[in-house]
């Protein structure tokens, strides 16, 4: 039926349409404008605003275009007297209770009601009575409400139900007393909540951080790419003068459609954080001095050249944030390698690198982002995709609505906004065994033969019905994928998880994908910002040290780019100690922190993502370049320029770039086509070493979505949401009872020789005998490794 073509006539124009399409879809597709408030092409049809009334021949009354299916031979008039009269009447009703506060309303200038009132409203109101007033509600740090302005289109309500998968807004009361809100005072908690600001056709829901800071017509809109997850959402940055005022989504059907996660929408506040580093600084005899760029770069050069002179280049390591641009990462690795060291890495939250030589050229998603919509089956391993990659989760949710099964193996029972077909919540140590059990079913079902060693290992796996259902679902569905998430990457047996996931994918004829963590995790691999491969993926002469090795080796000198090691690295304690013990640390950073003051010797101020041109390669391998939208703050400079000058300081060849696109061209020439296949090659495990059933507690570490990088950690409004680190230990009630701990108790937490005292939160999402700690919180830095044995007991004081 959808393909059956019919012909209709609109305003005398003959149009072809699909049978069953709504009239407004046809007029929209043919650039015939019909006014509307409640209709939105990504939401279900409500037909409650009545603004889209049009005249349809043979219909006794005008009909709403959004809820009228087209029929063969239908004759529609959108601009006839009857249509216009109907639209004007609706407008009069809508304006009865709408306040005349446009001059102080943030929506003014981009308000759909204001626009349509120009076209359809009367200059003078006939309404003399009192207008209704609705009390504003506080729905959290991101969204401001002015509910007197609400026209009850219910877009925000439908968004909650249909897109966010979490109905938080509703219409309570009736008649004149109907109100949009949450009924009880609560913050909306969706990770996509900011989208209701865009959806609201009036000024009832506006951006709280942006409020009263600019008029919309003063803003210049510039294109950019979001910098905080591996999706690479397309965004518009709105700039007034030289200041970023807000971020809104740009339409890209293949990536983020029309949506944006709150993290990507509100992170811009950190551009103007008080902690921004404004000028180059050097530390002399323990005190910091502001200096000019030349002096600072001289200090860097002299210190690094001392290593060259001592023939001690193994003592130089570079650690870069995977949120840096492709150009920055490419230049940093080029510089470090040209100086003579292969110690460069951007894999910060990983500890198991054992199979890095046999994996694909970058951690590929396994399929394109838009292909998630039509997925039939997915097995998520160690992933809180809803918070970590919100747009991919939204796509997965669409697939589930169309009947797909999403199955989960996690150490924490994360809340998904769609039903989960099967879930297994086990300690990190048990995760490989769970995969082995699923694999065992597949081996039995498919009668595939493979290496004896592996077969023996999985023979020990115990299979239950849940494993069977997971295996059979992957096997039965044609379009299935096995996905390794952020927690899998951080798992101490990542390569084992990867091998098992690879085998499961192979035997079930599914795809294998990685959900990578940062905006340019893919780009970092491709640009060669990894110790064992050059740009383009060729193995270098000799592999350098990975992040973990660099920290363990306590090198003499570190070059940091966009990284706060004690917050970003897998082993926070090790990172902090390595930095403190180093002889020389230079940090290319946008921010200055207390910790940096302690360990660094030179601070070079670099641009954030709005102040530099660059390129991100997202999780699906799409390369997206962008221009800087504002000039760098004070003396800060784009990191690619800093690295170029450093290259020249060292009198190295090939650092004479004119622009960042020269760097990009060179990098892309090395990279070539961004094409990969995760199934190409992986290490088949020779044996399976599953965690012995020791009585020890295991630590789990997650990074809450708004703690992921230096920028998000300084975005004021995001830091008021729930998605930040709480500096507590989360344990389930069974463990709490065993340890005689209750909520808000203080517990002594020990890891190896390190110990701290943290607050207890009883959280039944956590697997048995596990302790969840959120990373990047100052109180837990002293502990160390993200995954390890851990001890807890009630604090005596």
């Amino acid at each position, binding site marked *: 039926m959808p393909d059956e073509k019919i012909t209709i006539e609109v305003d005398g124009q003959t149009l072809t349409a699909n049978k069953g399409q709504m009239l407004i879809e046809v007029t929209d597709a043919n650039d015939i404008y019909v006014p509307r408030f409640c209709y939105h092409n990504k939401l279900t049809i409500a037909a409650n605003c009545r603004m889209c009334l049009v005249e349809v021949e043979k219909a006794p009354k005008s009909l709403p275009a959004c809820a009228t299916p087209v029929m063969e031979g239908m004759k529609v008039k959108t601009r006839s007297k009857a249509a216009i009269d109907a639209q004007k009447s609706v407008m009069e009703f809508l304006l009865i209770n709408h306040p005349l506060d446009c001059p102080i309303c943030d929506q003014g200038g981009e308000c759909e009601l204001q626009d349509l009132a120009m076209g359809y409203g009367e200059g003078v109101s006939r309404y003399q009575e009192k207008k209704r007033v609705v009390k504003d509600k506080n729905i959290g740090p991101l969204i401001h409400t002015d509910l007197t302005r609400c026209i009850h289109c219910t877009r925000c309500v439908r968004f909650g139900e249909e897109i966010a998968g979490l109905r938080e807004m509703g219409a309570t009361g009736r008649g004149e007393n109907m109100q949009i809100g949450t*009924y*009880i005072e609560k913050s909306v908690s969706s990770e996509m909540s900011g989208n209701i600001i865009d959806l609201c056709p009036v000024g009832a829901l506006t951006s709280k951080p942006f409020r009263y800071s600019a008029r919309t017509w003063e803003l210049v809109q510039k294109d950019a790419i979001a910098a905080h997850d591996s999706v690479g959402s397309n965004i518009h940055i709105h700039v007034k003068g030289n200041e970023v005022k807000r971020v809104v989504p740009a339409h890209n059907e293949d990536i983020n459609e029309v949506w944006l996660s709150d993290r990507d929408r509100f992170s811009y506040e950190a551009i103007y954080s008080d902690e921004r580093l404004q000028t180059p600084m050097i530390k002399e005899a323990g005190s910091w001095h502001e200096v000019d760029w030349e002096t600072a770069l001289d200090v860097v050069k002299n210190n690094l050249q001392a290593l060259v002179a001592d023939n001690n280049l193994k003592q130089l390591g570079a650690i870069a944030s995977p949120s840096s641009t492709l150009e920055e990462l490419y230049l940093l690795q080029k510089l470090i390698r040209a100086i003579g060291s292969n110690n460069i890495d951007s894999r910060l939250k990983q500890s198991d690198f054992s199979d890095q030589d046999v994996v694909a050229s970058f951690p590929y998603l396994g399929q394109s982002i838009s292909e998630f919509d039509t997925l039939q089956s997915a097995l998520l391993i160690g992933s809180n995709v809803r918070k970590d990659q919100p747009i991919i989760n939204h796509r997965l949710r669409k697939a589930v609505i169309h009947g797909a099964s999403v199955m989960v193996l996690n150490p924490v029972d994360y809340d998904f906004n769609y039903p989960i077909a099967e879930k297994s919540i086990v300690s990190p140590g048990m995760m490989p065994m769970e995969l082995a059990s699923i694999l065992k079913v597949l081996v039995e079902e498919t009668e595939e033969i493979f290496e004896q060693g592996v077969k023996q290992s999985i023979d020990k796996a115990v299979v239950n019905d849940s494993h069977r259902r997971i295996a059979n679902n992957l096997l039965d569905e044609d379009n299935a994928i096995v996905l390794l998430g952020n927690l899998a990457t951080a798992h101490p047996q990542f390569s084992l998880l990867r091998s098992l996931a690879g085998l499961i994918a192979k035997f079930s004829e599914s795809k294998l994908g990685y959900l990578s963590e940062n905006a340019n995790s893919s780009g970092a691999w491709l640009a060669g910002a990894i110790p064992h491969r050059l740009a383009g993926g060729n193995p270098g002469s000799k592999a350098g040290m990975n992040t973990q090795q660099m920290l363990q080796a306590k090198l003499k000198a570190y070059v940091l780019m966009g990284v706060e090691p004690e917050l970003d690295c897998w082993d926070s304690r090790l990172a902090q100690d390595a930095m403190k013990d180093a002889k020389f640390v230079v940090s290319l950073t946008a921010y200055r922190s207390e910790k940096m003051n302690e360990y660094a010797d030179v601070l070079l101020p670099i641009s954030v993502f709005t102040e530099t041109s660059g390129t991100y390669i997202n999780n699906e391998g799409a390369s997206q370049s962008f221009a800087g939208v504002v000039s760098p703050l004070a003396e800060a400079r784009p990191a690619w320029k800093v690295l170029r000058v450093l290259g020249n300081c060292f009198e190295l060849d090939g650092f004479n770039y004119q622009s960042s696109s020269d760097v990009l061209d060179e990098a892309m020439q090395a990279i070539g086509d961004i094409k990969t296949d995760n199934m190409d090659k992986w290490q088949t495990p020779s044996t399976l070493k599953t965690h012995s059933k020791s009585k020890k507690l295991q630590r789990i570490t997650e990074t809450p979505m708004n703690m992921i990088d230096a920028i998000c950690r300084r975005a004021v409004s995001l830091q008021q949401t729930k998605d930040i680190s709480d500096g507590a230990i989360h344990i389930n009630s069974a463990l709490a009872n065993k340890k005689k701990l209750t909520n808000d108790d203080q517990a002594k937490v020990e890891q190896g020789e390190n110990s701290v005292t943290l607050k207890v939160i009883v959280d039944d999402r956590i697997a048995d005998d596990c302790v969840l700690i959120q990373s990047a919180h100052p109180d837990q830095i002293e502990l160390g490794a993200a995954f390890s044995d851990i001890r807890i007991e009630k604090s005596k004081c």
Partner: protein
Amino acid sequence: MTETAITILTEHTRADIDAWLEKYPKDRKQSAVLAALRAAQHQNEGYLTTELMDSVAAYLGLSNIAVYEVASFYSMFETVPVGRHSISVCTNISCMLMGSDTIVDHLEKKLGIKTGESTEDGKFFIKREEECLAACCGGPMMMIDHKYYENLTPERVDEILDELE
């Protein structure tokens, strides 16, 4: 949440909701929301609290706001504390012609409250406005706690109120 629902909703309320759930398809639990709210209101002497509404939501697998919407929409649900006997005097046309205004006046004077208010001892509550309750032949009429009283006079109202606990 489900556990809270079980502790807050009494066994009797749950049995009542279950009986209604029987009448609807298994995947359409929200159909029972009106009946469930009525039962929940009944167990709490005539009004709903946020906790009760949350419990109904959890019991039926709905989002909390969906239940708030229903409870705030229908006039038979009270979402703030009210007196335990709910008095609704019909003031629609037939009853009005038969003198319902006198009945309302009398009630207000006798109880010392206006419509929409509850007595201080928490015994009586007069609903703000009640539409036709389909007992036009017996007008003026009122409903107290689901029970109809017809052909009212001020004296008859006194008798009825005095009989209530």
